[in-house]
């Protein structure tokens, strides 16, 4: 096919001509319209729908401030700590850039957790949005890796010992564990070699993957269209032009809606940056103002707050707790056998996996530390299963039985309690509480195929619930 370029009149504005020239060679206008300009989003978005845009904003803040920090930071065990103080004192506006970056890290997790909570409430991961959810889940994994690698860079005591503890977890893997953690560290202890490779991952490897995944997340979302608080497909009600009746073009409606959300967020964000950058030790830990010392182990090593729900599950896995886990696995395999309609082969795979785990947890099997790492990993990975675990006939919590809301609230309480216990030093009572919460956490997901389909569901309306402003 021959190359055809649309002819504009000779007196057309220069900008139109330039755009026409580009559009003939690159789908600029089409891209804008598909992704935002003519992307029809449901008009009934509520408060919970701001966190996607805010996550994008914080991503940009982290990248831009990160670029400036790298200009002055030294990834060298002998210089890293003082180079951060150099940024705080001698680089013009360095303190602001650094505080924006450190506050941005925590803000990112607050936003992402709320963004995920929204998806849980309104069933945003359900068909046809499974890939949107999976890309988002991969973004969450990248974010955790990014935060973990980045936290070593200030080279304070918490940076150092936090990295030491987490890298040592790989040592619990049978046979290859000790060599694997040695390979990750590049040394027998966390050292200059570790700092250099973590720096490389933090500033190049993970951000590259992260950006690609964000693009995939958005392209997938704009392909299938956004969910909404009612969990209705707005594409099923089209007007004469083929646009959803219950949708509005993102531009200008959600452009200005999100700008408003962004300004409110920035009020809160700058309040922390300018008045409480340490946030009482949760965003910047006091121990991290002591330079890393491989000979002095701090009394209490806690990961940063955003990892603590999962970290608590790791800590809750003691050898006594394994008996409960074994009983839980046995009961679950029975449940799958008796109460599911899965093919016989898959049921057999469940039974085999269950048997291997139960035997592995016996006193002669692998130790509790290994199973702690397995549960720690599973507690994160299980989120990926949401689109298939949830069997509710309706998407949104609005039309689910009322007791489902209680189940969500109990799960939320267990998750936050795990997070709280993870920052506290362990004690026998706290350990029991975190074990109870860990059981609730896993039960919520693993039993979801059954409980989510049970109860009296409310009728779902044909059109979205919307009150004009």
């Amino acid at each position, binding site marked *: 096919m021959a190359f055809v370029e649309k002819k504009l009149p000779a007196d057309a504005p220069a900008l139109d001509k330039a755009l026409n020239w580009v559009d003939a060679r690159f789908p600029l206008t089409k891209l804008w319209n598909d992704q935002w300009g003519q992307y029809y989003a449901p*008009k009934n978005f509520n408060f919970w729908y701001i966190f996607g845009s805010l996550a994008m904003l914080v991503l940009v803040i982290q990248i831009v401030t990160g670029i400036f920090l790298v200009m002055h930071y030294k990834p060298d065990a002998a210089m890293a700590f*003082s180079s951060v*103080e*150099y940024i*705080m*004192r*001698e680089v013009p506006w360095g*303190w*602001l850039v650094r*505080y924006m970056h450190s506050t941005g890290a925590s803000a990112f997790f607050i936003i992402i957790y709320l963004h995920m909570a929204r998806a849980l*409430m309104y069933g945003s991961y359900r068909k046809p949005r499974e890939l949107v959810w999976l890309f988002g889940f991969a973004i969450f994994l990248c974010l955790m890796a990014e935060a973990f690698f980045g936290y070593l860079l200030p080279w304070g005591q918490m940076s150092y010992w936090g990295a030491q503890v987490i890298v040592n977890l790989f040592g619990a893997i049978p046979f290859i564990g000790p060599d694997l953690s040695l390979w990750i560290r590049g040394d027998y202890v966390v050292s200059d070699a570790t700092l250099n490779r973590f720096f490389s991952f933090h500033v190049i490897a993970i951000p590259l993957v992260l950006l690609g995944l964000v693009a995939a997340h958005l392209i997938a979302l704009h392909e299938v269209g956004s969910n909404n608080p009612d969990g209705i497909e707005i594409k099923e009600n089209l007007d004469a032009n083929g646009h959803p009746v219950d949708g*509005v073009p993102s531009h*200008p*409606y959600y452009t*200005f*809606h999100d*700008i*408003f959300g*962004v*300004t*409110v967020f*920035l*009020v809160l964000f*700058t*309040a922390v*940056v*300018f*008045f409480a*950058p*340490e946030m009482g*030790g*949760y965003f910047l830990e*006091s*121990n991290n*103002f*002591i*330079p890393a010392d491989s000979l002095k182990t701090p009394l209490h090593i806690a990961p940063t707050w955003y990892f603590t729900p999962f970290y608590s599950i790791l800590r809750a896995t003691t050898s006594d707790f394994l008996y409960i886990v074994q009983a839980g696995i046995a009961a679950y395999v029975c449940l799958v056998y008796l109460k599911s309609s899965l093919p016989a082969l898959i049921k057999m795979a469940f039974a085999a996996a269950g048997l291997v785990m139960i035997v592995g947890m016996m006193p002669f099997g692998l130790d509790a530390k290994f199973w702690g790492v397995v549960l720690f990993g599973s507690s994160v990975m299980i989120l990926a299963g949401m689109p298939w675990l949830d069997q509710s006939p309706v998407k949104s919590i609005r039309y689910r039985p009322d007791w489902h*809301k209680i189940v*969500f*609230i109990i799960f*939320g*309480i267990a998750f*936050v*309690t795990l997070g*709280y216990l993870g*920052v*506290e030093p362990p004690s026998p009572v706290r350990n029991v509480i975190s074990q109870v919460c860990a059981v609730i956490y896993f039960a919520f997901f693993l039993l979801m195929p059954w409980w989510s389909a049970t109860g009296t569901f409310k009728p779902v309306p044909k059109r979205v619930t919307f009150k*004009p*402003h």
Partner: protein
Amino acid sequence: MKFLNKIIATLVLLPALALASEGYPLDHAPDRSNNMAALQNGAKLFVNYCLNCHSAVSMRYSRLKDLGLTDDQIRGNLLLASDKVGDLMTTHLTVKDAKAWFGSAPPDLSVIARSKASESGSGPDWLYTYLRSYYKDDSRPTGWNNMLFPNVAMPHVLWELQGVREAEFEEVEDEHDHSKKMEFKKFTTITPGKLTAAEYDSDVADLVAYLNWMGEPEQSTRKRLGVWVLIWMSMLSLLAWRLNASYWKEVK
């Protein structure tokens, strides 16, 4: 969903209910972060008493100009003859000598005030209590001990100012298991120092205010600027709110 929001908000505040940790209670350090005379006096005490052994390698002498001192004042009063105003606050004590004399190297004090914060109190509270909790203890190599930091390697450098104190302990019985243990009762002065107790507390407060300032010299700029940033951001969000409303008015 309102109920859910309330529960989330309550849970977010839970960590504030954390149990306070036990130990020697911290006194509250007076806030002198905006008192230039106090900060200057603190700087003088810091250079004269602390900087002989401790360093503050992230800090330049010239930064003291932020406290209202001039180059000449810094040069004349706070510098050794060989140092320049733009130099970093290093120390001539080597790590090897420090280990031989005290058993450990004195920590760098650049961000010491930030590193001592805990649930028991702020970093300045810890330092304020620490420097006022020394007592004579002949069982220690230096002859000094500290209530807040037991068996600390640092001797009581400010003893000339505070004088020499002894700590009185009394034997108490535990309510639960009836074991006997020694509990701190009070300090008694055996040799008065150059300062009265109130004057000493005030000087330590000045020194701690200086250490806190040195931990983050930009902190007052940060807060001053923050007020303007918040005012501006709030006005912007007000505008954005009305702008958004004007677009959404037409959505039926």
